[in-house]
């Protein structure tokens, strides 16, 4: 990627030189020398263009930022430009220009944008692409790459409710583009398609480019429907040897909890004469006063260190880095440590005609996942229970902890302290490419990349633990003399690509073309084992010591599957005189995962842009580019073999006195399974105004995904199974995005830049094949006691993400639920038919991010607010535990909605649906750049220290711990949780509480 970028920059300057050499005149000349540096840290700017004002003749700066230019003797002003920096004019008297300091800018249209299989200058971009470079990333306590972008890109939603350091972020671009697999954008890291975003350390990233519309993503064909995030990692530059150290330490603590009764409140409530209690006590008072949240949580300390070396000579450049992270979770016994190493190496040979590129990165992450139920139970564990048993009857599992037998109820301290749930993740990424310039303008590139990851999970619940659900393989109760679980999962992806690029200029027309072939192979395999009944807990790691293995009670499963993608693609970009731009691409891609006659699909795209400034000069407007694009992208099915008539083994049966494994179909095969395709039209406007102080982008789009692949109900009979994976309908989405940036104050000492982005999207299941019924996407409230309680539904013709159930209308005089019937009347819930309606939506109507950056001398201050509006949340903590009847065992969730008069069984209604609107001060960072004496003995080039706060405040009416948007329903709490993307907005009980953290960091440059 880097090579092409350099190539294009170079080609452009050469182009300029050739074009403009006509204007050069012969006259007396002089030679001016100088140096160009970055205003931020004084580092040299390599490759900056230096031209005499009014002339197009020029030169470039060398590796140390210095230049020497011969100009006519009457020239006394030089113009210095460079990608990513503002244009600078320098007056020259004599032959020295001194040091020219360039200020980095985001609005510069010469900035290079990374697109699929190449780069473009920003002004040439004709589709919706947002670039975010390292300076703009979120700062502070960052352990996940997705966090860097959270709230920064209009249209890109990134969320992780709760503060579990081992939980991933959900990423959505422009809402849902599919209802099947692949709802998260495709990630491309330095050309490696389908890479894992977290296979790189956040410190190693130079920039991320988000391809938002169908046209820009279409070159990636089958997997581009949910958008593409292209990550470019840091590389070395010629001649400049640098060592950088970044380190930080963070303290994290809980910021918002689920509201529940204190021991005193609970005691008062269960007293026979207490509030809401008629004649009898409602629960047990065990005599203690325990704050369970306090017992299970802590001030979590995390630190991270990044050391990188980069540099190079004429032929070879390198960037090597080592990252170490140690993060504690706020729950006791949780967290992870991770070490990551990365090397980017570029070697040029044959007069730069042949460029080799190698990237190797490896990660080992050791995580203590803990048990998410810790937070669920902390909210509802009887606050009068002591942590440790006071009587033998309370010492249920003989582990010393207080325990009571009940459903989904275990001492949260014991859960986190007694049981282990660890995961080791190993990743190895390797990529190599060679590019050869066959003749001028024509280059051939061959690339091979391999990404492999292995995950090893080890969990144990000892003989002295009491656990009710939430452990692997459904282990419950008093430990079965210990139970050990291990899982080993491996994934390997191999990519082989050839591309041929061609660049040519005919008169005012710049032609840029690429053609390529791509082959990608995926394999996944794994083994899971679970067994209990050990003589001693010490032998937990040794399955041969588990009696269950001998007794046939062990669980052992394994799997292996895979698929292959083959594609041909091509693209032509045309630039007419830097004024009108056209791009067209086509990808023909085939996958093994479809029916025999439906394997191949075509994914075309076309886009165009024009600089309107060439037609009309609008006062104060500097640039105004109108662009439009259309593109078709695809989505793969959720798994392999869906079109095949396959058998799997099942339970045995007695046949003639012998147990024989039975075999039969595992699915209704669908030989007609074909590509799901999304067609998207995007119209956008890029502008800068007021001397480039205001810059902005507005995008409007409309998209339709047809032939949605989904597992729907089918009639059985005649089908073998009651569900089948079929192409069943259409999804339409509409939305707009606005991003504005304004330099409010731009003085020498003081600057203030403010930026805002706004996202709105609306996704409708516009058509559902009648054979699939009237609705899909139900989600169940769950155990205990609320099974068969469906709370979401997606209807044909309606918006995705509806909550569906009864409408609460108050309580009867006897404390029974009143729900609404078909005529809108309030009726008793248990004896009259009430109706279910749509009672909320889980997806936001709009989302916003607002960033502010101030610099004052050496100081800089950055704060970032993020908000989502118009979404509702199902507060399941309340739905399960706010009913006073639970007090017989559980503590009672007590929010403003709590009503002691309620005397009815648990029944779900919109009583438990709340508005989720929120604004969070996501991040505030105060930094100081120390003045460094140039050429100091110690070699220190730069020192920066910063202090950063994360989640400093949250404004919301939501009563649960975290009002963050749940883009999908995460069911289960261990590795292997399933998610239902059609059921957004459900705040599950196992979600961690919201956390706040403070970070102190130091960046050193040598």
């Amino acid at each position: 990627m880097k090579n092409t970028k350099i190539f294009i920059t170079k080609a452009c300057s050469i182009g300029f030189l050739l074009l403009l050499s006509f204007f050069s005149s012969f006259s007396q000349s002089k030679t001016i020398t100088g140096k160009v540096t970055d205003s931020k840290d004084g580092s040299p700017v390599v490759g900056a263009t230096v031209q005499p004002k009014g002339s197009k003749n020029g030169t470039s700066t060398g590796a140390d930022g210095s230049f020497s230019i011969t100009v006519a003797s009457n020239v006394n002003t030089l113009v210095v430009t460079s990608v990513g920096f503002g244009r600078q004019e320098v007056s020259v008297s004599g032959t020295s220009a001194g040091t020219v300091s360039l200020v980095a800018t985001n609005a510069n249209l010469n900035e290079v944008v990374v697109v699929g299989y190449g780069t473009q200058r920003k002004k040439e971009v004709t589709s919706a692409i947002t670039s975010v470079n390292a300076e703009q990333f979120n700062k502070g306590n960052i352990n996940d790459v997705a966090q860097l972008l959270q709230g920064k890109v209009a249209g890109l939603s990134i969320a992780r409710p709760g503060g579990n350091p081992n939980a991933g972020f959900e990423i959505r671009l422009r809402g849902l583009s599919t209802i099947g697999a692949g709802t998260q954008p495709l990630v491309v890291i330095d050309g490696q398609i389908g890479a894992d975003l977290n296979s790189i350390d956040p410190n190693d990233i130079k920039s991320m480019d988000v391809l938002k519309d169908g046209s820009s993503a279409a070159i990636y064909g089958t997997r581009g429907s949910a958008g593409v995030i292209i990550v470019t990692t840091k590389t070395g530059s010629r001649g400049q040897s640098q060592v950088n150290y970044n380190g930080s330490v963070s303290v994290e603590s809980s910021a918002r909890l689920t509201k529940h009764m204190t021991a005193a409140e609970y005691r008062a409530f269960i007293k026979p004469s207490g509030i809401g209690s008629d004649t009898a006590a409602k629960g047990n008072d065990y005599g203690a006063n325990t704050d369970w949240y306090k017992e299970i949580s802590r001030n979590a300390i995390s630190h991270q260190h990044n050391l990188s070396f980069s540099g190079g000579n004429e032929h070879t450049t390198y960037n090597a880095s080592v990252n170490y992270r140690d993060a504690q979770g706020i729950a006791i016994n949780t967290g992870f440590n991770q070490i990551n190493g990365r090397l980017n190496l570029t070697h040029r040979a044959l007069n730069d005609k042949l460029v080799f590129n190698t990237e190797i990165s490896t990660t080992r992450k050791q995580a203590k996942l803990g048990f998410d139920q810790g937070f669920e139970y902390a909210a509802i564990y009887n606050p009068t229970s002591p942590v440790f048993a006071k009587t033998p009857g309370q010492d249920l599992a003989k582990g010393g902890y207080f325990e009571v037998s009940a459903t989904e109820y275990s001492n949260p301290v014991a859960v986190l302290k007694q049981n282990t749930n660890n995961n080791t993740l190993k990743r190895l990424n390797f990529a190599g490419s060679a590019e050869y310039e066959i003749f001028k303008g024509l280059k051939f590139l061959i690339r091979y990349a391999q990404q492999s990851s292995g995950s090893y999970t080890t969990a144990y619940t000892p003989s002295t633990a009491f656990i009710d659900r939430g452990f692997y393989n459904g282990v419950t109760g008093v430990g079965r003399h210990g139970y050990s679980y291990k899982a080993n999962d491996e994934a390997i992806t191999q990519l082989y690509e050839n591309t041929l690029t061609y660049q040519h200029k005919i008169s005012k027309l710049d032609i840029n073309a690429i053609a390529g072939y791509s082959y990608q192979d995926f394999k996944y395999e794994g083994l899971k084992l679970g067994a209990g009944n050990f003589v001693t807990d010490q032998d937990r790691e040794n399955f041969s010591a588990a009696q269950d293995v001998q007794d046939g009670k062990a669980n052992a499963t394994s799997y292996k599957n895979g698929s292959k993608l083959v594609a041909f693609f091509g693209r032509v970009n045309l630039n007419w005189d830097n004024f009108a731009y056209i791009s067209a691409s086509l990808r023909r891609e085939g996958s093994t995962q479809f029916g025999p006659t439906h394997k191949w699909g075509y994914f075309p795209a076309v886009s165009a842009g024009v600089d309107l400034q060439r037609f009309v000069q609008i006062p104060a407007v500097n640039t105004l580019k109108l662009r439009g694009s259309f593109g078709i992208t695809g989505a793969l099915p959720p798994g392999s073999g869906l079109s095949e008539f396959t058998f799997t083994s099942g339970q045995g049966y007695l046949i003639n006195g012998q147990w024989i494994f039975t075999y039969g179909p595992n699915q209704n095969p669908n030989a007609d399974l074909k590509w799901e395709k999304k067609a998207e039209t995007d119209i956008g406007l890029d502008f800068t105004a007021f001397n480039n102080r205001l810059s902005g982008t507005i995008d409007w789009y409309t998209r339709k995904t047809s032939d949605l692949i989904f597992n729907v109900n089918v009639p059985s009979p005649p089908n073998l199974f009651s569900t089948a994976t079929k192409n069943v309908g259409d999804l339409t989405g509409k939305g707009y995005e606005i991003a504005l940036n304004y330099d409010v104050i731009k003085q020498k000492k003081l600057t203030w830049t403010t930026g805002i982005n706004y996202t709105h999207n609306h996704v409708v299941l516009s058509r559902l094949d009648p054979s699939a019924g009237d609705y899909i996407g139900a989600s169940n409230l769950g155990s205990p006691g609320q099974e068969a309680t469906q709370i979401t539904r997606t209807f044909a013709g309606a918006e995705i993400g509806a909550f569906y159930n009864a409408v609460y209308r108050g309580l009867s005089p006897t404390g029974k639920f009143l729900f609404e019937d078909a005529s809108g009347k309030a009726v008793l819930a248990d004896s009259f038919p009430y109706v279910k309606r749509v009672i909320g939506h889980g997806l936001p109507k709009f989302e916003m991010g607002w960033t502010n950056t101030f610099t004052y001398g050496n100081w800089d201050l950055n704060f970032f607010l993020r908000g989502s509006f118009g979404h509702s949340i199902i507060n399941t903590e309340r739905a399960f535990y706010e009913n006073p009847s639970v007090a017989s065992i559980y503590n009672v969730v007590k929010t403003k909605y709590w009503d002691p008069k309620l005397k009815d069984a648990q029944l779900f209604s919109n009583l438990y649906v709340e508005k989720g609107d929120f604004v969070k001060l996501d991040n505030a960072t105060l930094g100081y750049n120390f003045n460094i004496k140039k050429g100091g003995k110690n070699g220190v080039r730069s020192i920066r220290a910063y202090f950063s706060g994360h989640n400093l405040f949250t404004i919301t009416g939501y009563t649960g711990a975290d009002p963050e948007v749940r883009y999908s329903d995460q069911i289960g709490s261990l590795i292997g949780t399933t998610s239902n993307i059609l059921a957004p907005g459900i705040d599950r009980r196992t979600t961690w509480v919201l956390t706040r953290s403070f970070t102190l960091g130091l960046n050193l440059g040598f």
Partner: protein
Amino acid sequence: MKSKFLKISLVGGLLIAGLSCTKLDEAPYLYDKVTGDQFGKTDLEVSSLVGRAYSNLAGIGGNNHYNPLNEVTTDEEIVPTRGPDWGDGGHWVRLKLHTYKVDDPLPNNAWNFCYSGITTCNRLIATLTTLNTPTTLAYIPELRTLRAIYYFWLLDWFGNVPLSIDFNTTTPPANSTRKQVYDFVESELIATSPLLKKPTGIPDVATYGRMNYYVAQACLAKLYLNAELYTGAQQWDKCIAACNNIVNSGIFILTPNYVDNFVQNNQNSKESIWAIPFDHVKFTGFNMVMMTLSYLNQNTYNINAQPWNGFATTAEFYNSYIDPAQNPGPQGRVIGLSPKGDSVTGTLDKRAAANFLVGPQFSSAGARLSDDGADVTDPDGKPFTFTPYINELQPAAWRQSGARIGKWQFYLGETSDMDNDFAVFRYADILLTKAEATARKNSNWNDPVALALVNQIRVQHGGVDPFVSMTAATFLAERGRETFAEAWRRQDMIRFGTYNTAYGFHGADPADNLGPNNINHLNIFPIPAIQLNANKNLKQNPGY
């Protein structure tokens, strides 16, 4: 020149190498699956195929359809809402109250269970016909019988279900009438009966767990017993004939010990006509231990999981064993019906001790269990005691309330999947069926044949005094005592007209004659909404 040629051929070669790989056959990627059309080549593979039609039956042992639909809707079983447990949107309560809704889960589970079995039979009949070897063809009568039994269950639960009998028909079928389904079941059983193996002794290893002649006859007996409900026409003679085909074989005998039919290793029970051969490793799914026992009982039997504390019996039904008026016989100390469950003097029917788990509970080491989470209002307090008394159906039934279903004997070191085999058709039931058909045919509950059959069971299994005379009500009560929890009660109560009356926590159903043959529409379940949604050719049952 030479180097240029080399370069071009290198580039060209690489391109061609890449481009040539465009094969997208999926078969090489199906590592952990078997290609369906390749399966069935050996005898072992054929029996493995046939086994799939049976392995579906594991569902009978759980709480998803078979037991709760046939039992919780009656006076025999109850799943009270115990505070936060077993509320589940009210569907357990609705079973008890007969207010089941079209989107309740259990009827849908039952539908899927039956049709999953039926479509598997259809598929296998087609496959085995195509394979066309003596071995494969020999399985076909067996599969037809099994399919008929699945239809018998559907006929009983839903009445007007679609008859899908041909694997090659792909249009979603419309409903058939209850009569049409009945006719199909009858004709299939009659046609296949003579083609099935006829065991000459019990146990019969060759057919254990599978269809044989007597299984087909037992199903016919049950079909005819309820024929009037299904079709409007009585079939007492046919019912008696089918029973006699079993009785006269002489290979089944009434076990001297009632519990022998239900113990952990009951596979040799001489009463077992068709049992599902559950095993905690090889054939899992019989979860009664989890469904009925309370959390702390994990310690009683050293179970490897914590039970769910759900299913129980009602105090009234429990009382039908201990009340000397209902059930005359030797008297003794049994657990009484008061909230505290103090012991009282009552009939010592051996079947009460066999069928229920009641009273103080102990650990496997013999220590009295103490329940620190006991409901404060429960008069038993922390000493852990099951009492037949249940304070309320919902929302806050005490967690220790209700006598538990101990019929399939629990044993030490049990897992959540019991080893006890579940007899769908049991000899004692066939004797009671014959007795009832005889009494009804002669319109005389004191018919000597009927009375003798009932008393044989009473004396031998219950150890109680024989009836001197019988009424419909005493016969039904006796039937209940014998076949408790064996999933026949719903059918029985409907036949005796008591299903819609008030009992236990169930108030009388509103009278209507919306159902087929003018019976109450509640006597068949609604066709599940999800099925109507998936198959537009289906029509809802009347009254829903």
